[in-house]
């Protein structure tokens, strides 16, 4: 049912139950918010009305109403711009700032902080309140993220994201009153919890309370060490988001400029994680065929996403035998650089530093997993930095990114197909696998390579694909809550699939915790996904098994996919972990 009301004397008609905030937006009035965050398609709605920044006047109501959580009613008269409302909002921000570090200039969130932007928008020029300031220890225990509770404004976005969307439940508000702070269970260091390091808490934190572990200095150091041969690789989702760091429209493809910038930064070789994505398809397809032939357990689950891997290790330790044993693509590229490439070009692997540019902060943790290396001093990947960190490096180096001429990745670990680039979005890994599986199993050419049923932002996508007379039941999920739902159905025997793709972040890697901040605008993720599919269409080859450089790798070095050498270099194992 629709109802009528007025906001700032403008009459409007909106559906019953809508909040004042959303109603105002329909007539282009933006009421400032801070704790509120509604990401409809991710099932995330944080409207705890704790910050009181969105207060407005409602005629007949004594106190001010929080617009985010007050539903409209017939005949409601709302004023968003009265002196009382404006002053109250400014006061709320001043009160928040009175217990917030004033170190904006040196904060990693400087110029990307919602609280800072709000203070600027509301014209806060001095803080009239002096009082107690919280003092908490900064948690630097993890290899992926830093938690600084001193910068926490208790908006609880991280908690909603972790508990409701990801169902990991690492965070809770602890204590009460002024002492309330978002913490881990028993104040454990982040590294000792069930945290998957997906980084979605970082993606929604409005301040610098949750940040990636900054490893830019490690990269600078390697680049300026003449004894190091420094190789860089970039994940597919980076090329469709990096431009945002330089004011380009979301969804702008900047592959060529990114490669050029990386060369200017001084990397000795610029490789593409997409090459290893094609290798992943070869390995996963061979592993699936092996399971089908030898009666192995199905469904096979993808294993490209390190946050998803850590999730099932903690939450489903009884299912450790069903995920594919394939290392994630950047780990494969790392190990291939230090073996195949090093051997071919006569470089000592111990002198090679592999840097991965990832849309993800869990990859930082993954690269440090002890089993992902040839020996303790030769990890597959040495340093991982996020899309955001790369943008900072390019700015620090004074490179005019948008003016750069496009350049190409280096041969041979820079060659890739369209199947590889779609790894960057939800549904892409499975679609890439099906393109290859279809041709390998039927021996026929697959004319239409697009599997539309696996695309888009639905949390769980399913399809039945008929290949050589056998029906393959497949599913795609993104967001760990959806993954949990589907895994529980597998545990109870309610659901049967042959293959499932799982990515921890909503939208897949394009929505990763290391990407430029979306500030609540999910359209940005859709633009990045569209760009990924556009990049796929523009590739002359769109099936992984047609990548000539990958075929050469198998012929000259690896031998058979899922063979002995492949299993030693490109596959891994998983560990049972406790649920905290």
């Amino acid at each position, binding site marked *: 049912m629709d109802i009528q009301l007025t906001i700032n004397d403008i009459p409007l008609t909106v559906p019953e139950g809508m909040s004042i905030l959303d109603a105002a937006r329909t007539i282009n009035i933006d009421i400032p918010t801070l704790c509120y965050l509604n990401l409809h398609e991710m099932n995330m709605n944080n409207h705890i009305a704790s910050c009181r920044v969105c207060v407005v006047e409602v005629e007949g109501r004594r106190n001010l109403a929080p617009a985010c959580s007050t539903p409209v009613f017939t005949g409601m008269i709302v004023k968003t711009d009265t002196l009382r409302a404006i002053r109250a909002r400014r006061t709320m921000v001043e009160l928040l700032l009175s217990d917030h570090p004033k170190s904006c200039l040196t904060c990693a969130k400087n110029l990307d902080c919602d609280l800072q932007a709000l203070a600027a928008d509301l014209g806060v020029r001095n803080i009239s309140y002096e009082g107690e300031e919280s003092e908490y220890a900064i948690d630097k225990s993890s290899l992926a993220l830093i938690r600084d509770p001193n910068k926490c404004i208790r908006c609880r976005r991280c908690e909603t994201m972790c508990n409701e969307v990801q169902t990991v*439940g690492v965070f*809770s*508000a*602890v*204590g*009460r009153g002024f002492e309330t702070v978002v*913490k881990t*269970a*028993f104040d454990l260091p982040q590294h000792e919890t069930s945290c998957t390091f997906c980084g979605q808490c970082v993606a929604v934190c409005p301040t610098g309370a949750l940040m990636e572990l900054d490893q830019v200095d490690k990269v600078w150091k390697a680049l300026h060490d003449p004894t190091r041969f420094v190789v860089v690789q970039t994940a597919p989702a980076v090329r469709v988001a990096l431009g945002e760091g330089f004011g380009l429209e979301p969804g702008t493809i900047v592959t060529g400029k990114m490669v050029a910038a990386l060369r200017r930064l001084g990397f000795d070789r610029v490789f593409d994680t997409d090459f290893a994505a094609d290798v992943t398809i070869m390995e996963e397809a061979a592993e699936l065929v092996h399971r089908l032939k030898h009666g192995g357990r199905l469904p096979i689950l993808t294993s490209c996403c390190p946050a998803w891997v850590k999730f099932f290790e903690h939450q489903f330790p009884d299912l450790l035998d069903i995920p594919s044993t394939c290392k994630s693509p950047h780990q494969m590229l790392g190990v291939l650089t230090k073996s195949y490439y090093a051997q071919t070009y006569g470089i000592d692997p111990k002198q090679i530093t592999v840097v991965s540019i990832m849309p993800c902060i869990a990859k930082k943790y993954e690269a440090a997993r002890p089993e992902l290396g040839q020996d303790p001093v030769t990890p597959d990947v040495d340093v991982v930095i996020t899309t955001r960190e790369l943008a900072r490096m390019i700015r620090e180096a004074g490179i005019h990114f948008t003016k750069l001429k496009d350049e190409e990745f280096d041969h041979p670990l820079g060659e890739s197909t369209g199947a590889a680039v779609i790894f960057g979005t939800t549904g892409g890994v499975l679609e890439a696998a099906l393109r290859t599986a279809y041709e390998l199993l039927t021996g026929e050419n697959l004319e239409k390579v697009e599997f539309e049923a696996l695309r888009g932002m639905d949390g769980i996508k399913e399809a039945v694909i008929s290949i050589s007379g056998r029906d393959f039941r497949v599913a795609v999920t993104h967001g760990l809550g959806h993954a949990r739902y589907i895994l529980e159905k597998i545990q109870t025997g309610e659901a049967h699939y042959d293959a499932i793709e799982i990515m921890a972040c909503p939208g897949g890697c394009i929505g990763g915790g290391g990407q430029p901040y979306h500030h609540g605008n999910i359209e940005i993720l859709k633009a990045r996904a569209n760009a990924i599919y556009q990049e796929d269409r523009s590739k002359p080859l769109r099936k992984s098994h047609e990548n000539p450089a990958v075929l050469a790798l198998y012929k000259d070095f690896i031998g058979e996919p899922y063979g002995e050498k492949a299993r030693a270099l490109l596959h891994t194992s998983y560990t049972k972990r406790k649920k*905290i």
Partner: protein
Amino acid sequence: MCDHASSNDPYPGLDEYIDNLAYKKENLIGILHYAQELFGYLPDKLQWHIAQKLDIPSAKVYGVVSFYSFFTMKPRGKHVINVCMGTACFVRGAEKLQAELEKQLGIKTGQTTSDNLFSLDSLRCIGACGLAPVMMIDGKVYGRLHEPEEIRQILAEYRSEPKLATIGL
């Protein structure tokens, strides 16, 4: 209610209590009350155990325990002393009484003596304003407490009881 407190391992008793509940996750606070009565306090290990049993994140249990002042994560003494900080007691010297207790016990309010005999806390008005200032030891009220010697004698009565056997966790 505390049938199992005398046995060495109180966990089976807690598990049995939880198993018999029709609604488990919904009953977290009730379960915590029962657990605290059984164990005396709610250490991390016990909170983790309850979280596993209910299949909820430990952080959620920790959040609830930390929110309600009734719950304690530190072992409590055999006897809990509560000093009334209500208005009547306050104006008649509750602060002095509190300071004297802290001095004699050698602990601050909120703490427990090293021999686990006494915990010292404060509360608001117990309805014995005519006796202000008052303190309560395990539910027994002592009023008009102005003299340090008087307080020393009361504590001595509790000290002369047989020693407490600690619960093994």
